[in-house]
């Protein structure tokens, strides 16, 4: 993985010093809270319901055992013994103090980490495929471009105070695992085969999608540029961000994201304006050079893989003790993904054990143990996924059984990846001061209701995402089943959306109707799931059944209990009157 050079290291060290001074000025009162706020946000520091929350970047999801150990130590020393992995490849600490933050950032800087631009109205931590460099379906390893863009966007002066936050995602695989179309800018990398002077060349290019996003107005991004050579990304993105910086709305925070500008202008007109701006700067020296590519890309070479022969799942299972084979096979099916290199596989450690306090949480002890597992089984590297799980990307297939045993001890081996209980959830009203409602008790109640692994396996791929408010940190819009916390007259209610989907066939879920009380949600989900089970054709996944039969049968089922209750009440009232 990428190793900081003196420039990167100097920059994060100096950033810590700068923030230390800003905090001191805040504490002595010379910097007002209103004016300190954007400064702390651009260093990942939020003020939440109970305490400060610090969001630390895991750029494009890649980190090392050494870094995870530091994250664990921070959770022990400065927080309450756990950390929360987010959907944006960050880790959050919920209980830090303002006074400690400069020291935490200094600890992070020692292991080449930071919290720069993990919040605020700036270019945020760049997210990518957690399986970059190893996925069997990959066209392009996105990591060098992600790292180049991380550097380019870090402390970019012109775009330090954009109208609103700005998120990049980069994908280079056949299956999109980044929710590319829900980002302000989605960069789809590919190799273009051309013949130049009689020689076949494989040019790295990008397709650019702009104006996607979730929140109050969920919109999928529009394709605005095709076949952009990789090296001109800085000038093209400068043009794009400049148009947004100048013309994005600043009068209304809810209409300030780039998606509103792209929608108002139309994608064609937006693309035309970006093109117009780009024409003036496309040949400038902002662009990446081959030397920069070489410097960065050399860090993303393959680790020292052994020459192994590929094993089939049957062989792997056959080599395990007979009594364990059924459970092991399930884990292999759900939590192990194919690799580019024969004899290797990628393992997803589930941070969604049933009954968990919060999806995506890991304790200090778990983090330390997982760091050891990555050293032992996966070249000391880890990935954080959009679904809030962790990945050991380079595991020898012959060691999968052994690793499974170890993972079970840490309670990160539940074979529920991609299943109904692999819930994406924000921290919600338990922590976040923006939230209208709690997310975590809902997630827990659903996991308790669907605690039967046989049944979950039978249901197959279903995503259930929960957000505590319309800011949509739990990505409910793209969950097959989405749950959104809403506030009605000071009470917590939950709105259900159906039909959302991430990936290549992304779609935004549709609200099915009036919202529910928290204690109604498990029954509502059960009724929706029963409808799917009754209506599905063979092995058809939930989303396909939904797309085939439409929302109505699900909606009727979801409100069945409510309608029956209402009828009962009507009868009682009628009976009482008679």
């Amino acid at each position, binding site marked *: 993985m990428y190793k900081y*050079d*003196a*420039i*990167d290291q*100097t*920059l994060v060290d*100096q950033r810590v*010093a*700068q923030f230390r001074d*800003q905090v001191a*000025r805040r504490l002595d009162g*010379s*910097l007002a809270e209103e*004016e300190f706020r*954007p*400064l702390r946000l651009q260093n990942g520091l939020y003020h939440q319901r109970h305490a400060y929350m610090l969001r630390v970047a895991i750029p494009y999801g890649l980190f090392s055992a050494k870094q995870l150990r530091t994250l664990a130590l921070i959770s022990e020393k400065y927080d309450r013994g756990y950390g929360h992995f987010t959907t944006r490849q960050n880790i959050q600490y919920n209980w830090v103090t303002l006074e400690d933050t400069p020291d935490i950032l200094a600890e992070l800087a020692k292991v080449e980490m930071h919290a720069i631009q993990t919040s605020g*109205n700036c270019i945020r931590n760049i997210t990518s495929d957690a399986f970059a460099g190893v996925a069997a379906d990959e066209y392009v390893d996105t990591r060098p471009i992600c790292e180049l863009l991380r*550097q*380019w*966007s*870090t*402390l*970019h*002066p*012109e*775009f*330090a*105070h*954009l109208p609103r936050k700005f998120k990049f995602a980069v994908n280079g695989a056949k299956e999109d695992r980044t929710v590319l179309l829900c980002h302000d800018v989605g960069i789809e990398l590919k190799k273009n085969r051309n013949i130049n002077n009689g020689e076949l060349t494989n040019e790295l290019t990008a397709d650019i999608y702009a104006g996607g996003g979730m929140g109050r107005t969920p919109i999928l991004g529009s394709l605005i540029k095709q076949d952009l050579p990789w090296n001109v990304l*800085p000038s093209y993105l400068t043009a794009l961000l*400049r148009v947004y*910086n*100048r013309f994005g709305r*600043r009068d209304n925070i809810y209409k300030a994201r780039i998606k509103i500008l792209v929608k108002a202008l139309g994608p064609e007109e937006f693309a035309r304006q970006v093109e117009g701006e780009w024409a*003036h*700067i496309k040949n400038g*020296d*902002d662009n990446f050079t081959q*030397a*920069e590519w070489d*410097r960065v890309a050399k860090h993303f070479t393959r680790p020292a893989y052994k020459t192994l022969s590929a094993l089939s799942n049957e062989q792997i299972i056959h080599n395990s003790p007979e009594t364990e084979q059924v459970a092991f096979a399930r884990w292999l099916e759900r939590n192990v993904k194919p690799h580019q290199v024969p004899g290797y596989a990628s393992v997803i450690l589930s941070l969604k054990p049933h009954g968990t306090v919060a999806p995506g949480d890991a304790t200090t002890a778990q983090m330390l143990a997982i760091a050891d597992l990555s050293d032992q089984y996966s070249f000391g590297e880890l990935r954080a996924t959009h679904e809030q799980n962790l990945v050991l990307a380079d595991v020898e297939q012959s060691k999968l059984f052994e690793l499974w045993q170890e993972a079970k001890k840490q309670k990160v081996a539940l074979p529920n990846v991609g299943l109904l209980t692999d819930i994406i959830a924000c921290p919600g009203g338990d922590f976040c001061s923006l939230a209208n409602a709690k997310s975590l008790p809902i997630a827990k109640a659903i996991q308790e209701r669907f605690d039967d692994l046989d049944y979950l396996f039978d249901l197959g791929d279903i995503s259930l995402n929960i957000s505590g408010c319309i800011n949509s940190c739990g990505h409910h819009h793209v969950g097959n089943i989405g749950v959104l916390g809403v506030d009605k007259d000071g009470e917590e209610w939950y709105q259900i959306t159906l039909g959302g989907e991430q990936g290549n066939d992304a779609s935004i879920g549709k609200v099915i109707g009036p919202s529910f009380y928290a204690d109604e949600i498990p029954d509502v989900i059960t009724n929706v799931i029963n409808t799917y089970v009754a209506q599905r054709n063979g092995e058809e996944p939930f989303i396909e059944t939904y797309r085939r039969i439409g929302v109505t049968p699900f909606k009727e089922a979801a409100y069945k209990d409510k309608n029956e209750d209402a009828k009962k009440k009507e009868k009682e009232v009628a009976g009482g009157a008679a």
Partner: protein
Amino acid sequence: MSQMNLASHQEILHFPKGGKPTLAPNEWQVWNGDQDKSEDEGGNFTLPDLEHGAHKVLVPFTWWCSQLDSHHAADIISKAKKGQIGVWFATDDDILKHADVIEAGKKVWPLVAAHFPIFRDGRSFSTAALLRNRFAWQGEIRAIGDVLIDQLLQGARVGFDSFALRPDQNLDIALKQFDLYTVTTQNSWRGKRSTCELHVQQYAS
């Protein structure tokens, strides 16, 4: 003179490209031109008296544009040439739509400024970048309005070289902002991004 908004800055922080940050007395007053009112509504479109009192004034770019076809044009241009009138850009001035005015203004303006209505509004960063990159403006660009200590670095990098800080800002702390970083990871008006060749040299020395 209630329609005038004469800023009360005593000192301006100057940070010329390639130079050091220093403080110097402010010679310029910012006039807002009563932009929100028409003449019929009692708007005051009379420049401050440049013979007595204020000798140098920054006028709104929109006001400058509006005067170019009037009988005052020659007088205003002559005052600009004498170094008495510069323009300031509001955040919603689309400078690219007035490229001809800016190209002509480059020959006469002694100073231009860009306004920050609130510190977290970053539009004037792009204005300064465009003035430097697109229009090759070589003169001074001043940041005016809600200019705070923690915007100085960003402003200096996009193209500002003088700052009328909000009067409550501590100028001693302000002067120390510019050497917080010795490296950068993208080009700016001040210089190219740090390169690994530099890194090798640093390590060798």
